[in-house]
């Protein structure tokens, strides 16, 4: 999985970077690559590439990075996995390319030599890479369509610095750690910082599915080479006006799932499975066991606070593990372990997030058992319509479309409702925005997923910081942008629209980013077979016009044997951490800032709002010495 770092002093006036600067950025991500490190410096010293390696495929030195082509002019540093590397390697060899080893990095390098930027269309996997082309003195940065692997950059107008983790850029001091009000506002609205913003004013995320060229005159605006909205829209267009018969749909889905799982099991190291009592990870275990042809290790976390509650995963997970013959490892997280985990996870957090602790804990368990690769069911709800938002967002939009047409009604209703003690009445404070936002796809999604609403930010951030943050962030524009350009673009079905919103925002900015930093902090590569564009294109035509719930049922039925019916029919669960209890208990000292905010301290406040404020106010996920506290 690894970490990459680089510096390109592109402008003629830019002094060459200090000899060891890129090594410092690289080594700020040492946990991402315990198996090796490398450095490449161009002859004129103006381009430096660094890499830390977690060796999963071709662990031999033939896979070391940065890797240079036989001509010595093109260099690559790559993070992630290319799951169709065997087919791509065969195509390259058939065309006369001689490959030295079997690493996917070497395949990427030769694909670039053969196809240039056009290589991106051929890739199936999770990746972020940097390719330096010494022939044209240009640098190419690129990311996978879903944004499973991150890539951040800081451009000062003369020199570009980039790295897999945002903090690595600011930790070394070369890039300012000054906060971006847009990043702060985005975090409080959504629980994670939406790209291209980051917590830091001078650091940007290369958007998912984008590529960016940097030449002697600086970076070009990133070009989107793959957009989920387009993929979903194309897949919808393939769907017949009536859905295929259920039997045929089930069979096609099983084949597509097996294909994705088969690709995601490509590894020269053993692969485990993160297992909850839910459908996604359970079916994944069944499918992976079938493809692997042998028993797998499965990992579940148990919390005493949840004992006997519906959120306790262990009993269901144990039954699933037994059903598929897995070696099941259950790790109990008591108070002392929780405290240690919180300390370490909060220290490892790349950017502020209200999630990721569950991944950190289960990855920690996997690493304790010697595993470096694990499958996760992340993405199943976005792909298969598992979230309540698949019903609520379209329904509200239908009810409230008329209200949205009446000028001023929404804002007036919001201001009136805000004066009511909604929370004391057991109603979310977000409800004040129902008439204002609910009639629109972007607004409806923001209502469904948001922690705080935009009008709440002045009280949290201060008036000026909130105004500046929202003015730069433009949350509705940002949300709307993922649906595609213009009324004729993007998905047309309710399912497609919500799938794109959830996949391009919540999945990308929260779940996948958290899986990256949390897994890599434990030295575990988290693979997500349900987050795969090939699978997406196969599944959307089946589900776009099918009754909601079909996807999850067909996933449960795809494993052999099918997932236990009781678990398949159970309410949605999945790696729940007892954060509400921890905020009042074990995390009381570390994450207690919410107590000083009357609105958050009041009974009935959702734990996620408390946690988001605590992380913001405590200055977590920032380099030492940089306080994130209340501004303005």
């Amino acid at each position: 999985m690894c970490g990459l770092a680089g510096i390109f002093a592109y402008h003629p006036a830019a002094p060459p970077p200090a000899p060891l600067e890129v090594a410092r950025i690289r080594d700020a991500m040492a946990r991402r690559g315990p198996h090796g490190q490398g450095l490449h410096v161009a002859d004129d010293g103006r381009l430096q590439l660094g890499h830390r390696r977690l060796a999963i495929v071709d662990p031999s030195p033939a896979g070391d990075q940065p890797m240079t082509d036989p001509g010595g002019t093109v260099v690559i540093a790559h993070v992630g996995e290319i799951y169709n590397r065997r087919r791509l390697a065969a195509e390259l060899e058939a065309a006369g390319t001689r490959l030295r080893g079997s690493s996917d990095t070497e395949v990427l390098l030769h694909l670039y030599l053969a196809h240039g930027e056009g290589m991106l269309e051929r890739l199936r996997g999770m990746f972020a890479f940097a390719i330096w082309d010494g022939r044209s003195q240009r640098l190419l940065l690129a990311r996978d369509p879903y944004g499973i692997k991150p890539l951040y950059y800081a451009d000062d107008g003369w020199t570009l610095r980039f790295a897999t983790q945002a903090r690595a850029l600011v930790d070394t001091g070369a890039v300012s750690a000054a906060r971006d009000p847009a990043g702060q506002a985005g975090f409080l609205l959504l629980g994670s910082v939406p790209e291209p913003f980051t917590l830091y004013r001078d650091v940007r995320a290369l958007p998912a599915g984008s590529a960016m060229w940097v030449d002697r005159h600086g970076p070009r605006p990133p070009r989107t080479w793959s957009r989920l909205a387009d993929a979903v829209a194309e897949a919808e267009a393939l769907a017949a006006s009536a859905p295929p018969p259920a039997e045929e749909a089930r069979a096609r889905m099983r084949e597509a799932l097996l294909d994705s799982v088969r690709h995601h099991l490509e590894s020269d190291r053993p692969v485990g499975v993160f297992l909850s009592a839910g459908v996604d990870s359970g079916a994944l275990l069944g499918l992976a066991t079938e493809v692997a042809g042998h028993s797998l290790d499965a990992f579940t976390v148990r919390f005493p606070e949840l004992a006997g509650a519906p959120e306790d995963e262990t009993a269901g997970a144990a039954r699933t593990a037994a059903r598929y013959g897995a070696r099941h490892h259950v790790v109990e997280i008591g108070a002392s372990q929780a405290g240690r985990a919180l300390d370490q996870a909060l220290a490892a957090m790349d950017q502020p997030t209200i999630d990721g602790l569950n991944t950190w804990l289960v990855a920690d368990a996997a690493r304790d058992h010697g595993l470096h690769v694990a499958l996760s069911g992340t993405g199943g709800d976005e792909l298969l319509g598992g979230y309540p938002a698949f019903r609520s967002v379209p329904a509200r939009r239908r009810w409230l479309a008329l209200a949205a047409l009446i000028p001023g009604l929404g804002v007036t209703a919001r201001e009136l409702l805000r004066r009511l003690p909604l929370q004391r009445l057991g109603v979310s404070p977000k409800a004040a925005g129902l008439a204002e936002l609910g009639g629109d796809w972007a607004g409806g999604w923001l209502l469904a997923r948001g922690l705080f609403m935009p009008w709440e930010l002045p009280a949290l951030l201060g008036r000026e910081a909130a105004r500046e943050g929202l003015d730069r962030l433009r949350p509705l524009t940002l949300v709307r942008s993922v649906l595609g350009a213009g009324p004729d673009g993007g998905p047309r079905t309710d399912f497609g629209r919500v799938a794109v919103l959830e996949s391009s925002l919540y999945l990308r900015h929260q779940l996948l980013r958290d899986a990256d930093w949390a897994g890599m902090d434990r030295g575990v590569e988290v693979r997500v077979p349900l987050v795969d564009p090939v699978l997406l294109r196969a599944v959307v035509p089946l589900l776009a016009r099918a009754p909601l719930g079909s996807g999850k049922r067909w996933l449960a039925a795809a494993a052999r044997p099918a997932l236990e019916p009781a678990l398949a029919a159970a309410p949605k669960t999945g790696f729940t951490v007892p954060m509400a209890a921890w905020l009042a208990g074990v995390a009381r000292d570390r994450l207690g800032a919410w107590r000083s905010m009357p609105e958050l301290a009041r009974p009935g406040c959702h734990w996620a709002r408390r946690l988001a404020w605590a992380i913001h106010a405590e200055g977590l996920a920032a380099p030492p010495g940089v306080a994130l506290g209340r501004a303005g």
Partner: protein
Amino acid sequence: MMATQDLAASADPARVLAVLSDGLGAGGGIARYGTDLLRALQASERVASTRVVARHGADGVRGRRLSQRVAAGGRAGFALALGAERGRRYDAVVCGHLNLLPAALAVSRDAPVWLLTYGIEAWRPRRRWAARALERVALVTAISRDTRRRLLQWSAIAPERVRVLPPTVSPDLTPGPADSRLAAALGLGRRRVLLTVGRLDPAERYKGHDRVIGALPALVAAGHDCAYLVVGEGGDRARLEAVARAAGVAERVVFAGHVDDGRLADHYRLADVFVMPSTGEGFGIVFLEAVACGCRVVGLDAAGARDALRDGALGALVAGDDLVPTLAAVLTAPPDPETARRRRDAMLAAFGPAVFAAEVDAMLDRLRGEAAPSPTRPEPAHRGVGIRRPEPMS
């Protein structure tokens, strides 16, 4: 190769409209930067013609593929002159000042707009109309990294659209022997000479003449028999003369007044050290001129001076408290022509006319290869935030 680059490479030479505050023939640093840009456009194979409409400068200038109209009659006259251009079709519009941006956008029709930014005009948050107008610009060039960084702090424009285009320097400025007759005429005698070149504008006191005058007594007390040569004219001169008198160094401070470009090199060559401890330079082109003439250079580690001195590679960048010891050290060290030559070569490699011309061509490619951004509107969900009194959450 990206589609945008293909488009740029295949584009016909562009008809460019330059909407400037200071056109050819105007005075000052911004005018010099604009002149260098216009000359680069004129020489570029990517440009078919350049039409300049300016508020100040020489009216009626015509050259190969370039013509200039300077509008009389203040703002109204300028608006009329621009209005006359609306009937013509341009492929690109260069806007020379943020204040002129609405006019440039209005006259641009569908042509992409390139905005030039310099210093303080782009450093502080502007009114909302300016911020919104900025988002409609295809390309912004900032004269320095500092100006770029400050502009991005208050604007929502995509950072990749904001590039840095440093100024260039005339190759005519070269090292040479000091003109003893000029030194005598200025009353410098055999004293070591500290030099600053810059306008003496009450609005530009950040340039730091006061700091140099304030350093003189300590330098003299330390045994340095030095004089301070001030080149430049402006409304702040009388105050600076009073400051020199108050500090007891009036006879060591020489105000040379305005010096024509043709005599500038002679003045630089008199200097043992060029010093401009400015806190507010957008860039500080005089630093480049000083290096070109072989001067040792001292500036403050602040704002655009970092760019002009290439983070200290071309001269000393010091904190304010270190000004006296740094000047003392420079005055103590013997002149080193070899180091001066290497610095001049390094300066020209970074900021020379060839580099500037290549950058201008690259900006033209970028300008024509990338679509102008669509403006986005304020969002109802936060409309009013910042105007309404914040309410506590309780």
